[in-house]
């Protein structure tokens, strides 16, 4: 269900650490399967700033809407605009080509609040 080497949030986002305080963010396989066929992604704008826990953007399936939250505080530095034309990538490759945005974090300490694979999986089991 989830993948080694990533960090996870309570609200089912995965976080991958890249260089220079930049994090890549997406939703987990569990999240996409709960939502069902994803049909629309409302991407954030590059340069927007968010506090940890803010709603960054919305993902819509046929009969549900989900909010993607900022896993840490920071500024959006990249978005995956492939999702605009092909939102199904979120269903098909949630951990790879289905990434959503990259955020440059302002406070690396916040990473400590994220879960590792084991913690996330045990959360899912509850």
């Amino acid at each position, binding site marked *: 269900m989830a993948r080694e080497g990533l960090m996870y949030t309570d609200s089912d986002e995965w976080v991958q650490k890249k260089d220079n305080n930049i994090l890549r963010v997406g939703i987990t396989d569990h999240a996409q399967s709960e939502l069902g066929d994803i049909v*629309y992604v409302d991407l954030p704008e590059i340069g927007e700033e968010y506090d940890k826990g803010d709603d960054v953007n919305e993902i819509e399936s046929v*009969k549900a809407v989900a909010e993607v939250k900022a896993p840490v505080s920071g500024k959006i530095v990249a978005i995956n605009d492939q999702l605009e034309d092909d939102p199904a990538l979120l269903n098909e490759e949630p951990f790879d080509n289905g990434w959503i945005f990259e955020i440059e974090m302002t406070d690396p300490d916040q990473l400590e609040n994220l879960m590792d694979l084991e913690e996330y999986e045990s959360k899912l089991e509850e």
Partner: protein
Amino acid sequence: MAYYPHTSEEIEEMLSSLGYESIEELFEDIPKEARFNDESLLNEGTSELEVSKLMKELSEKNKTVDDYICFMGGGAYDRYIPSTVDHVISRPEFYTAYTPYQPEVSQGTLQHIYEYQTMICRLTGMDVANASMYDGASALAEAVIMAMNVSRKNKIVVPKSLNPYWLRVVKTYLLGSDAEFVMVEEKNGEIDYCDLEDKIDDDVAAVLTQYPNSFGIVENLKEIKDKFTSKKTMFVVMADPIALGLLKKPGDLGADIVVGEGQQLGIPLSFGGPYLGYFAFRKKYVRKSPGRIIGKTEDKEGKRGFVMTYQTREQHIRREKATSNICTNQGLMTVAASVYMSTLGKQGLREVAEQSYKKAHYLFNELTRIDGIKKAYPDKPFFDEFVIEVNTDLNKLKYKMKKEGYLPGIILKHQYPEKDNQLLIAVTEKRTKEEMDSFVSKIKTILKG
């Protein structure tokens, strides 16, 4: 008479299977203080025959457009409704179904709505239409809300030549919002372009225009649109659907949202409802739009089929963030409208519009030849409704004309206190030369008398 099939034996059998002795026990969870005990207030029912009689008696106390010859419009019109319309909407398959939540057994309703959406788009020149709002006025209100959401602005520019009754509905819908209404003066029966230029700026969410307007005059949509200063400002046109059988489409003249009162599309007058709010707009705004939308797709065997789509906008999914709270709409009235538009078809709608235009202009010419009657707005183009200025007490004139068997029109003073002696007259394809000639001669006699 009661519409529950239970025999007393069955009631007992069902109760005892539940372990109860009386119906009372089904209501044990209701606290005593909240119980209603005054049986004496509850009246008895009666038979179908007696109810028919009672209702017939009540109905005969009303005077209808069959008792009078009707020249009254103002948003609701006495038009011919082909027989097909009532035969289709009387089919229980249409009128006893509900919202097509289960598409596999609702393809009739769903395909119909897809066809209806197509017809409304063709009528208005728009890309997308929804499956109805409650009526024209509420459709206009929803259009304003949508325009505010799309533009993220709050100023609404409204010409005085837009029906004040409908504007009142819009204002009620927006109570508690930050909408700011800016009125544009009227000049010679149409929007005052200088005033419009003064009032319009980059902060405007929407400019509203009625087409033709509340005096029957065809506003120049293109010229209005030319005054816009910001690309964000939405042009909301409230159009008469029969006039669209003749006039250029608002979509070709720069409108972003086109709404209207669909009563004229095969729906009886019924004292103002049920009517039909039609609602159409440009595709790029679809996610901010209110109401139900049907889309084409296929089933798992590749067969064409139709489903409700963009449901994530609606209250049952998005709840407090929904684009509107509408749930039950005017579904059956869309069937009436589709059957009406299909029965008349391409040529018939044009012919209805054309006859209405010609008859209205005939009556206008005849009336304004009478001494004491003036053209209120002489150089403006109108469609099938017009204003005359009569040198008399209009209330008395109306009273006398009703005695002669006519509904002579609407006294504009009720809506426009500053307008004295002006009468708004509507002529549909139903009126004949004979009816109009005698209408003219009666008015002549009364004015002389």
